[in-house]
């Protein structure tokens, strides 16, 4: 019996062509696990929104066709009536929490539908046991790592006991181990007989879970495979669909988990880092701050006595979530004042604020980094000597020339990222840092970022990129630098690198 029926759906968002749907017919049987894959903007998220009713009730647009979910006619059903039937885990853990504390978040849904407090408490207990949430109960949402946030999101959806669970790119911000945990949760739901529909770019963790795979292209269901057919697809076929790989190589997995057996390799032409110690906890002090030292040991979130970063190369910074990758980048470029590390490049020593002059970090959320009202002035803002010709040149090389006068906030995510990269180039920084530039990107966007990074490195910049993305590492990183608990575990040349 079909639990989800989409019939002759044609949909277009108000004022945008992205993510529109064209003649979608989809029946999902009860208990099936369906994967939606395809490029960004191909309509995956729109299908998810049709099933949970956010289209047409929250995101408006022109909609034709019939949608029936578990006996409800979506067009005529109010959103809150679906709460106990359809649950959705969203992509961005930052913006799907109503509460500030974890317990409050899990009980939020059941409270909304007016369940008896006793029943809610019983459900909370069941879920905590089932999903192993003991250690993260009673904490503030703002202190959790991305993986922990996503587990709470799953728990708060499960607390409503929905028959149908939708996941919209749930792994975007997660590291390898958190994805494994997410996979465990999905498998448990599958075992309980829930109907699961997942829209996702990363495919490897779902290969044993899915019964059907639907490939979306320009708002149409272009291909469909069964689970077995999908797993049997060859590497080249997967590539030809511009999908991320279904199978990960063992070595890459070890690399991204920061567990490779390699040690520090020697680098000939290098930028030297010295005495990078930092902790988010502070020594108690009255008048004079105490500096962090190596002898602080486990107290430190970052503990690097000396390190050589290959010059003019791309170094991938890997390791599990919360192990100090972002901290390392922030200390390196001087955003953390209390870290007194030195950068030695070409015999010159940079410390303190000077580090900001030779480093430039492109942040994960580029929205925070764009300030002005046009792409051009954005780039000019970074230039010390306002050279218009050079600005045009940079924009040209990044394919942004046509958007010179556009407001940065009116651009797509990928374009915004390129604007941020353009201003990084304009700042003439020797060391360019990237914090997770490809999380949540599809294969072809990831390839573009990787090409850009290679372009930057070949023009002489030293690029350090923190990432969980195995494909990005194999595409472009010359070296892999493994961090664990704030310490450098290894630096090795990347054998898997397929640079053309």
């Amino acid at each position: 019996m079909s639990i989800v029926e989409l019939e002759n759906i044609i949909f277009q968002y108000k004022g945008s062509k992205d993510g529109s749907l064209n003649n979608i017919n989809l029946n999902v049987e009860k208990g099936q696990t369906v994967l939606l894959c395809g490029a960004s903007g191909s309509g995956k998220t729109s299908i998810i929104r049709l099933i949970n009713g956010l289209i047409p009730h929250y995101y408006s647009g022109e909609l034709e066709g019939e949608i029936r979910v578990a006996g409800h006619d979506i067009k005529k059903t109010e959103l809150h009536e679906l709460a106990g039937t359809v649950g959705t885990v969203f992509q961005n853990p930052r913006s799907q929490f109503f509460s500030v504390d974890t317990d409050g978040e899990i009980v939020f849904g059941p409270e909304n539908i007016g369940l008896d407090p006793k029943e809610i408490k019983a459900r909370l207990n069941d879920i905590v046991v089932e999903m192993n949430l003991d250690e993260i109960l009673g904490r503030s949402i703002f202190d959790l790592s991305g993986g922990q946030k996503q587990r709470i999101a799953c728990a708060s959806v499960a607390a409503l006991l929905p028959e149908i669970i939708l996941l919209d790119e749930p792994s975007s911000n997660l590291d390898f181990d958190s994805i494994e945990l997410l996979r465990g949760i999905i498998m448990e739901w599958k075992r309980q007989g829930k109907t699961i529909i997942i829209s996702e770019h990363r495919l490897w963790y779902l290969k044993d879970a899915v019964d059907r795979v639907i490939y979306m292209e320009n708002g149409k269901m272009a291909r469909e495979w069964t689970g077995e057919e999908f797993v049997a697809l060859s590497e080249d076929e997967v590539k030809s669909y511009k999908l991320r790989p279904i199978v990960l190589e063992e070595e890459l997995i070890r690399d991204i988990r920061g567990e490779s057996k390699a040690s520090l390799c020697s680098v000939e032409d290098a930028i030297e880092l010295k005495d990078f110690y930092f902790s988010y906890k502070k020594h108690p002090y009255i008048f004079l701050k105490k500096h962090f030292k190596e002898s602080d040991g486990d107290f430190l979130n970052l503990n690097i006595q000396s390190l050589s970063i290959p010059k003019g190369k791309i170094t991938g910074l890997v390791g599990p979530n919360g192990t100090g990758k972002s901290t390392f980048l922030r200390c390196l470029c001087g955003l953390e004042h209390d870290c007194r590390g030195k950068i030695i490049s070409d015999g010159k020593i940079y410390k303190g604020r000077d580090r900001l002059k030779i480093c430039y970090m492109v942040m994960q959320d580029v929205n925070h980094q764009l300030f002005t009202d046009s792409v051009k002035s954005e780039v000019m803002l970074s230039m010390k000597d306002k050279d218009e010709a050079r600005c045009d040149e940079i924009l040209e090389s990044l394919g942004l020339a046509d958007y010179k006068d556009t407001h940065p906030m009116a651009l797509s995510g990928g374009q915004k990222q390129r604007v941020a990269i353009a201003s990084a180039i304009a700042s003439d920084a020797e060391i360019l840092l990237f914090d997770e530039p490809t999380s949540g990107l599809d294969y072809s966007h990831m390839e573009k970022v990787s090409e850009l990074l290679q372009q930057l490195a070949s023009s002489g910049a030293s690029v350090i990129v923190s990432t969980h993305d195995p494909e990005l590492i194999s595409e472009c990183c010359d070296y892999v630098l493994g961090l664990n608990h704030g310490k450098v575990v290894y630096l090795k040349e990347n054998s898997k690198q397929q640079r053309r």
Partner: protein
Amino acid sequence: MKLDPRTKLFMVFVVSLVAMMSATTPLLWGIRLTITIIPIILLVTEKKYASALRFFLAYAIAFVLAFYFLSEKSEGIISSLLIGYCGIVVQFMPAMITAWYVIRTTKIGEFMSCMQKMHIPDGIAVSLAVVMRFFPTIREEYSSINDAMRMRGVMLGGGNVLRMFEFRMIPLLFSCVNIGEELSAAAITRGLGGDTKRSSVIELKLGFADYLLMTFLTAATVIFVMYKYFL
């Protein structure tokens, strides 16, 4: 010490009321100071020593300056600036400290449950709860934007005050609007906004400390008003 959110709300009300009425005699000043000290002590009981000390110092300095060094006869730019600063701090700080304490120590669940107990409509309660939830988000966003500005060397907006403000506000507004939109979509899919009466896991009970504090606050307000307007 665990206070009931209702007591906390009452405290916000009383502290703002007393701090806003001008104190003229030593007795009135005494009441106002006592009422200002309460939230600071409460912060200490919550182990927020640093903020308690910071609030205490800021208030004490402004108070001492205003009382001993400034008078109607003060002249010059510095004293007029000081009068402005001290006046604002002495007048508004008590209410601010209290609000800060309440926001820091109240869970959203407790707040919602308290609103239900007071028979406030769900719509109003939910909107207020979202406002509370947004403070930490704004702070997080703001600090990332500040980092980005430092990175790009535009902390001072190129010396232009207006741009300094613009560079902070525009990205902040954009990301808050985005987060707000995604947040409400996520909340609606989990049943927010229905006609069903919300239930609440948290059971609130007024304890001894609550009654004590409420009695004290009420008494202080009554004495303040009596002595100011009727005696």
